[in-house]
């Protein structure tokens, strides 16, 4: 294991930035979100939960897919992916265990056949440096999904305490990054990390949501859960906004839209939310006309549909962002408690 003094972190960022892009939690106008590092930016590794998850490193809020030039009746399609391919490799720094797990959830969608080459290009160009949690909060429940917040995976795992950032490379990519910054690192830190991990685990045990019962969320209960009358009550205060979706690290629904420019048409992909009333709107109807149906879709997808298609892997990682951010305090924990509790009925 290696370590670097906290005071020298800016040097580390500068060194990485020389040859690679560096994407990490940065405070801007009072809020911390993942953004590209630059001299003078206020990095905030201590922030437990960035408002947006780091998913936009691979699956940006909006990205160009292709361009069309039209002349008379003719259409020319211009592939814009080469612009991405030439993008220099980048480092995603400070990813928490839950957000890292969320990347696996996204991988299973975007890297499944047929592979999404836009996502893949970014994913392959990235070295992920994770950061263990030391101060989990009451809205955290990653433990429920078998995630160890004190030992996240990734190409490099790091731990942060008052004085040092501890550094452990896990993969070839991680070794390469370690070599790049070797001059800044020194040996040691195993003990400090072990102490921190122990202390954090003690907190994790005590978190109020650490023992949520997921046993009812199984594919064989799909129809029972779908038809549960509790959805009406759970969703009645839902505003139909997209907050939960957009702060969620695993939500990956998107829309494809066209934008007319002076040069032609730009086709782009952007985040979309199943909570929106036009999500499933077709010319001749809508398969989900009520907010209850849309609300149900979101949570059924996370807890039943996705696992049923992905070997039981839930598409929730317990980051608790929806718990903190829903304007009316509706969230997946309330859903799990309400429906999961009916196990023995």
């Amino acid at each position, binding site marked *: 294991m290696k370590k670097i003094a906290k005071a020298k972190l800016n040097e580390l960022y500068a060194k990485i930035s020389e040859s690679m892009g560096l994407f990490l939690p940065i405070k*801007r*106008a*009072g*809020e911390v*979100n993942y953004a590209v590092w630059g001299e003078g930016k206020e990095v905030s590794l201590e922030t437990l939960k960035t*408002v*947006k998850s780091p998913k936009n490193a691979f699956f940006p*809020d*909006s990205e160009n897919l292709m361009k069309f030039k039209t002349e008379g009746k003719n259409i020319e399609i211009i592939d814009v992916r080469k612009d991405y391919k030439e993008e220099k490799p980048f480092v995603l720094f400070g990813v928490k265990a839950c957000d890292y797990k969320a990347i696996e959830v996204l991988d299973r969608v975007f890297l499944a056949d047929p592979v999404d080459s836009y996502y893949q290009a970014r994913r392959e160009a990235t070295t992920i440096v994770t950061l263990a949690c030391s*101060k989990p*909060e*009451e809205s955290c429940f990653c433990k429920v999904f078998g995630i160890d917040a004190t030992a996240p995976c990734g190409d490099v795992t790091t731990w942060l305490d008052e004085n040092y950032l501890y550094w452990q490379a896990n993969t070839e990519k991680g070794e390469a990054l370690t070599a790049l910054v070797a001059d800044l690192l020194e040996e040691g830190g195993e003990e400090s990390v072990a102490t921190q991990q122990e202390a954090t685990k003690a907190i994790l045990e005590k978190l*109020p*949501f650490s023992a949520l019962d997921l046993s009812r969320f199984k594919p064989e209960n799909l129809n029972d859960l779908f038809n549960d009358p509790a959805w009406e*009550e759970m969703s*009645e*205060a839902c*505003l*139909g*906004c*997209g*907050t939960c*979706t*957009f*702060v969620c690290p695993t939500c990956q629904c998107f*829309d494809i*839209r066209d*934008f007319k420019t002076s040069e032609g048409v730009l086709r*782009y992909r*952007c*985040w*979309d*939310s199943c909570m*929106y*009333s*036009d999500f499933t709107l077709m010319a001749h109807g809508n398969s989900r006309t009520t907010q209850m149906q849309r609300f149900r879709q979101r949570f059924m997808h996370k807890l039943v549909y996705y696992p049923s298609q992905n070997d039981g892997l839930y598409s929730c990682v317990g980051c608790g962002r929806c*718990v*903190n*951010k829903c*304007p*009316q*305090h*509706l969230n997946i*924990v*309330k859903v799990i*408690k309400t429906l999961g509790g009916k196990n023995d009925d």
Partner: protein
Amino acid sequence: MKEVETKMLERAKELLESGEVARVVGWKKGEFCYDPSPATFESVEELKDFTYDWFCGANLSKYLIQISKKEGKTAVFLKPCDTYSFNQLVKEHRIKRENIHVIAVECRGKFDIEKIKAKGISFVTGAQLDGTQVKVSTLYGEETLEKSDVVLTKCATCNKDYQVQDEAIILHERTKKDVDRFAEVAKLEAMTEEERFAFWREQLSKCIRCNACRNVCPACSCVKCVFDNPASEISAKVNSDKFEEQLFHIIRAFHVAGRCTDCGECSRVCPQHIPLHLLNRKFIKDIDNFYGEYQAGETAEGKTPLTSYTEGDTEPNDVFKGEAK
């Protein structure tokens, strides 16, 4: 606050048991002490989850658009600011007034859990007002904070009074605050053009276009929003660059200008804490300046500033000149 809650609960029970109302709209308990959700209670049995505390900041008026169309009468608990939204919606024929029984309920400002957490306080288990201070209990003990530091932004400058009530549950009188709700707007106005641009750039670049500000807004009650309508040519789901953010927020605020009661829900729900109320308040301030003081929601009748005019109105090219001030 506990006494108020008890009174409210008693009254809700009475109303439901006597059959005077078919349902009561209030708040139900969450997982913590600080995350209640708006809820409808249709039986005394359901009232077991009823709550009213320092964190019931949500404005219930907009829910009444749908609920007032239901069979039977609905009782609703409205805070002072909520009554303005209610009136405005009645004025716009969105709420069926005759189906609603308004119970004005005491409010001495609501707390913002995010502000408490921002002070480094976690595992909050309760909060109580103590004079000008707030005692926050946590798993690790008690913390004392200034009330002005923890109230919701919308409550910090609120001097509103009940505009409509069929009955009231008020145990503590409120003291009028000596604050100018336009102070922040004036501060921005005093900046240079570049500074203002930079301020809004920084703030609006955080926007994730979740539409929470729009969906929570009691004035945003269109059946189909212009931003959801592909035929409007401005529908979009994401801010692709700096312009879209401004377009969305200018138009959002503009569409409610003259109807916005300054309930402040837009700022409360913003996941990125963009001070959206400063856009709405700018319109309110301008309307007051140009066309005389006007408070939307004070009455359930009459014209709004943008649906009326006088022959000698301020000329648009003159709004920056001294005479308009």
